């Protein structure tokens, strides 16, 4: 084992572009190329190009691939049609979230599970452990793919310049194989920015050529390379949870306000899945006596809330905790996602503050997301 960070197939490209690099889940990834605010605005108004090759791909194949995934994950994966994708989670038997995932059904008996970089091994191990008795094979494809994302309102136009694939027929949360800039790719209309956009899974050997072709195709539309910093503020504005922040093993999907991803009615295994009993209890608790709720907070001042800062009343009583916070380029104010006691979770609740290094700064409680794109 070496502790040296892993590098993506685009590493030299990032360095040539002058990226500020950062260690992320054992990978050396671009944090930003110039200004994270400008990258953020580019994705909201034009388009941005991301290297997401650190994400973890796991392929599940076989006659009982659907049955295995229905048992191992909380979603109704057997109900996903070929060519479509589903946002789902993998939970512990006790209901805690191991990771949030996107599962693509590539063929009748073939799925690709995309895990967060920091959890890819955990997900691989859990799937493998849960596969006993199922006629299905699990393949670690983390090294088989590079992942590029084009996100933003101009992204369909940019991609159309370099592919003949039927993008208009490709719905949100769908994926199909195709050729992009002469490179074989799984073209998926997914993303983590709150904008329309595409994620392109390709062989690592093709990543540089694809990056360069997309850069060229997007030049007139104002496409810019984007790092993980703006990816975080984009997803925060869009109210999307991040593993390790809003989602942890001590949180169930219901605690995170994402109970809708848990499907107790499944087409396979008589509806049985790992975590079912605990999650049924969590659903009951969330409906009648929720401990804390996930809300949005918008600052009136300019100081920025950070993950872990206490949410307090004006008198200083702790009523919650910030899980993510950042200055929102779109709103022009600091925003946060926080767990707060249910009594304070109603939008418009008065007297909610965040303790920012000893100073109680007033915040407005709001529903998530902070930003929703116009369709």
């Amino acid at each position: 084992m070496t502790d040296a960070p892993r590098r993506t197939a685009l590493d030299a490209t990032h360095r040539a572009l002058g990226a500020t690099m950062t260690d992320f889940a054992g990978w050396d990834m671009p944090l930003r190329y110039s200004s994270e605010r400008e990258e953020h605005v580019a994705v909201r108004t034009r388009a941005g190009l991301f290297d997401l090759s650190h994400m973890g791909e796991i392929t599940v194949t076989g006659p009982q691939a659907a049955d295995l995934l229905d048992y191992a994950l909380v979603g109704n994966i057997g109900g996903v049609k070929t060519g479509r994708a589903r946002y789902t989670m993998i939970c512990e038997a006790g209901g805690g979230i191991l990771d949030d995932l996107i599962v693509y059904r590539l063929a009748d008996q073939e799925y690709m599970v995309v895990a967060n970089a920091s959890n890819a091994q955990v997900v691989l191990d859990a799937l493998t452990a849960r596969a006993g008795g199922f006629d299905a094979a699990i393949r670690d494809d983390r090294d088989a793919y590079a992942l590029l994302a084009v996100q933003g309102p101009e992204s369909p136009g940019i991609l159309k310049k370099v592919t003949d694939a039927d993008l208009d027929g490709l719905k949100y949360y769908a994926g199909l194989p195709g050729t992009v800039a002469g490179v074989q790719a799984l073209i998926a209309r997914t993303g983590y920015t709150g904008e329309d956009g595409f994620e392109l899974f390709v062989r690592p050997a093709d990543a540089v050529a694809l990056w360069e072709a997309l850069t060229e195709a997007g030049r007139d539309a104002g496409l810019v390379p984007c790092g993980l910093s703006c990816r975080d503020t984009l997803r925060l504005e869009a109210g999307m949870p991040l593993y390790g922040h809003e989602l942890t093993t001590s949180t169930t999907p219901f605690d995170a306000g994402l109970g809708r991803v848990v499907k107790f009615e499944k087409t396979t295994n008589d509806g049985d899945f790992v975590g079912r009993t605990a999650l049924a209890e969590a659903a009951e608790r969330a409906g009648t006596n929720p401990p804390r709720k996930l809300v949005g907070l918008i600052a009136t001042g300019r100081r920025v809330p950070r993950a872990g800062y206490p949410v307090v009343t004006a008198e200083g009583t702790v009523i919650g905790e910030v899980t993510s916070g950042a200055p929102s380029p779109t709103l022009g104010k600091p925003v946060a996602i926080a767990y707060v006691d249910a009594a304070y979770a109603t939008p418009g609740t008065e007297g909610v503050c965040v303790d920012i290094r000893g100073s109680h700064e007033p915040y407005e409680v709001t529903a998530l997301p902070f930003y929703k794109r116009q369709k």
Partner: protein
Amino acid sequence: MSNPQQLRYSKEHEWLSGAEEGVSTVGITEHAANALGDVVYVQLPEVGATVAAGETCGELESTKSVSDLYSPVDGEITEINEDVVNDPSLVNTAPFEGGWLFKVKTSGEPGDLLSADEYAAFIQS
């Protein structure tokens, strides 16, 4: 990036202008501004406050982090840059010019400050 020759530098990445009638201007270096990323909020000491070399006198917030601001010298604050309070991005766009942070009437000689060349070597190391 270039560090202006006429300035002196602290190891906490502040720059200090040569004292004119005992008043020096203080800012953070381009190197520090780049490391912070987009600065979104600055908290500066109040005019009249007494500051001490190496001690915290404010904070700088960027998208991803918050950093303490240190004074490179002992002295009394005579002016703060209201422009940078209103537009913290000046720290990024003009760290040695419009992004200056405060002016301080120095009391005594500043201690362990670096020349531009020494500072350049320091941030390389």
